[in-house]
């Protein structure tokens, strides 16, 4: 077992523990800590979480939980994870053009990561910002009222930041 919480995650974990009378509730927040530390959730990390929380939580249970929720990346994603909403309100506002432009500019298809691991583009189901569409979530931030020009500018800016 090679993974363990970073210092920051350990502090966060200690704060979380007294908030729940049943320690099983720690699984979801712990998976987020794991993902924050290494960008995705893997078997080593899940095993560590199961051991840190202890019985009755098992690796199988943690794995079952992690695979149910879409926000846990089961494989590495690019440094910038561009998630574009494709559902009804964003579609009506032109999200298809935004996805197409982003993919064309990066030379990848939806769901793929650029070879240099800089960007991943994904279509997602509703980001809950329907009045401000088309919307993309890039890492922890929302980008609203997008169009082809804006998404190109954003990608250029992020690429410059490296």
């Amino acid at each position, binding site marked *: 077992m090679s993974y363990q919480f970073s210092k920051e995650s350990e502090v966060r974990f200690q704060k979380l523990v007294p*908030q*729940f*009378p*049943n320690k*099983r*509730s*720690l*699984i*979801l*927040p712990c*998976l*987020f800590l794991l993902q924050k530390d290494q960008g995705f959730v893997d078997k080593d990390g899940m095993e560590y979480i199961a051991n840190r929380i202890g019985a009755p*939580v098992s690796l199988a249970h943690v794995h*079952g*939980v992690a695979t*149910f*929720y*879409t*926000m*846990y990346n089961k494989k590495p994603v690019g440094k910038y994870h561009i998630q574009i909403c*494709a*559902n*009804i*309100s964003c*579609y*009506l*506002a032109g999200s298809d053009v935004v996805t197409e432009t982003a993919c064309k500019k990066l030379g990848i298809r939806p769901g793929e990561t650029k070879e240099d691991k800089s960007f991943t583009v994904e279509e997602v*189901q*509703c*980001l*809950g*910002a*329907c*009045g*401000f*569409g088309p919307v993309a*979530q890039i890492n*922890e*931030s*929302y980008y609203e009222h997008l169009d082809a020009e804006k998404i190109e500018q954003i990608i250029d800016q992020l690429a410059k930041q490296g």
Partner: protein
Amino acid sequence: MGLRKLLTTHIDHPESHSLSHYQSVGGYVSLKKALTDLSAEQIINEVKTSGLRGRGGAGFPTGNKWSFIPKTDKPKYLICNGDEGEPGTFKDRLLIEKAPHMLIEGMIIAAKAIDSHQGYIYIRGEFMKGIAIVEKAVEEAYAQNLLGKNILGSGYDFNLAVYSGAGAYICGEESALINSLEGRRGHPRLKPPFPAVSGLYSCPTVVNNVETFCNVPHIIAMTGEEYKKIGTEKSPGTRLFAVSGHVKKRGIYEVEMGTPLKELIYDICGGIQNDKALKAVIPGGSSSPILNAEEVAIATMDYESIASLKSMLGSGAVIILSEEADLVETTFRLAEFYSHESCGQCTPCREGTHWVKDILHKIREGEGTEKDMDLLLSITRNMEGGTTICPLADACVMAVRPTMQKFKNEFQKRLKVSDKPSEEKQSVVHAG
């Protein structure tokens, strides 16, 4: 009727999320009143008198929900459902980011009403900014003894924690949310027992929506009797409507219940984009059956009026579709959503939502036949009416079938060329 600010009075202020600003505009005065002057029964009675109905989707009377909590020695839990995720719905995000203390105040008052000493605010994981704002607000509240032990010297203790969802629409269903909060897959539970009897950690639990809790401080401040004067008799209060789609001014508008839908679209939202004709409106989130233009003309935004048109006010999400909208495509996108979000527990939902999506895809690509149309309607009949644990399958049906029935022509036009009812055939039928 029309615009009426109650919950959103101060949200345009850049510091509306801070404790100091909230207190400067009368925040937490209701809490003091509830903790020192009112008993738990009196709080519940005020909320019952107000007629407040849950703002999450089902519209169940809030005061009644609170009164179902049994008086036992078991811990009682209070949960805020901030897992907003239905396509078209984006109103709770505004309150989470702009009025977190209104939410916290409402929750503490509700906690006293049901004798709860531990609460959780469950927010959809994608709302990372909102989660950070609410976490900060909770810290501020603890620092001023608005949370924690002996709140404001009243002798009442209440702890509150923020919990992040992880990307599963189904967790907006209250029993799935409880499972998620318990560190499990977000599978809905069989009911009964209802959460009021056996919810979080098998203890009595109340789950309310963000907007519902935000109404509570206002009810306590103005009394239930006064609150009831806003809106209509059976749907009192204001409602936050999240308007999206083909409309000039998309956004979130707080209006009095009973406001005509046409007034919302044309007077408040500036009318249809590019001055096109209105084709249809989805009035309460993607799972509410679509209304055609004739129905829109007579609808008012309250539970009863929308129900009389065989639809639902639901989550307050209004999606406007102009004559330019491709209803085959929008229906396919909604079916895609429901098939993606089915938790997989019940066969009619797991298989049905995928099947519906696949057939709609076929029709969308011009490969569908009349038989597919019949099959689609037949499948949806097997997905509804209690064949599944939760209403996700019903939601998929409501998002698909009424559109196919009311706008049959649009679907037929997309069928395989050989299968389209020709104009000649149609005229023969009419002549006969």
